[in-house]
């Protein structure tokens, strides 16, 4: 896998089918349905529960706005990911191009996915720092690898944004 940044886009080339599939999983991984811990994490309380009025208003006015914001970012990423389905040879390495103006949406969607997966599997801080665990073994190991791979992508995007 290779990263490079051009004037108007970020490019990830030589993506092998396994990593390409992990990328395709980003939009689905952001879904919080059936994962109350993830829902709680993405839509955390703005204040101590003792501030009842503030928390109630937040739920009513701010949470729908956040939901819309997160959904827009995921839609943008899903649309960019369509490129991965255009490969004529299904098991060949492929290339993904991310326009610079989509970088913020990618950071958000990757973060949403990482938080949802981490909440779903209740990963510990120690596990999250274990960047060498093989993805082969269990669904949990694969998900940990997914979280770290998405984090790696976030780092790449952040670095490119900073240098650009």
């Amino acid at each position: 896998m290779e990263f490079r940044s051009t004037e108007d886009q970020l490019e990830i080339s030589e993506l092998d089918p396994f990593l390409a599939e992990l990328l395709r999983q980003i939009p689905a991984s952001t879904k919080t349905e059936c994962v109350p811990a993830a829902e709680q994490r993405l839509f955390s309380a703005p204040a101590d529960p003792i501030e009842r009025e503030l928390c109630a208003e937040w739920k009513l006015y701010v949470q729908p706005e956040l939901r819309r914001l997160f959904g827009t970012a995921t839609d943008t990423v899903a649309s960019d990911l369509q490129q991965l389905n255009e490969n004529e040879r299904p098991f060949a390495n492929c290339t993904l191009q991310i326009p610079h103006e989509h970088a913020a949406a990618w950071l958000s969607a990757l973060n949403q996915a990482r938080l949802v997966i981490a909440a779903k599997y209740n990963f510990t801080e120690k596990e999250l720092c274990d960047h060498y665990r093989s993805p082969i073994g269990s669904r949990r190991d694969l998900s940990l690898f997914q979280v770290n791979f998405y984090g790696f992508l976030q780092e790449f995007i952040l670095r490119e944004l900073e240098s650009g």
Partner: protein
Amino acid sequence: MSWQPRRGGAEVALSPLLAPVHLLVATKTSFESSVENPTIEHETRSDEAVDLPWQVVVHNDPVNLMSYVTMVFQKVFGFPREKAERHMLEVHQKGRSIVWSGLRERGELYVQQLHGYLLLATIERVG
């Protein structure tokens, strides 16, 4: 973003020192007895001064990347990189960092922005 948070000034418990209206009674001395009525000046403090004691706190989260949190602090608060990193490290090492303090209304907007970036943030009364 269309939502405008309500003003929260009315909910803040006011200490006598922060009372919104101060009456300054400039009474004339007996040497100036030619003036029949003393001048009464009203100095009104703005709602903003009354509504001061709130702070925005960012809490530790093992998932968010350190570089990402630094970038968010720079974007939301306009912190220079060094200051953003200092707060990020405080969050990481101490579990929380007070990143801003002031009026409740603005604090709520900051928390909303931080939640938009998926950081764990809350607004608290100072003290």
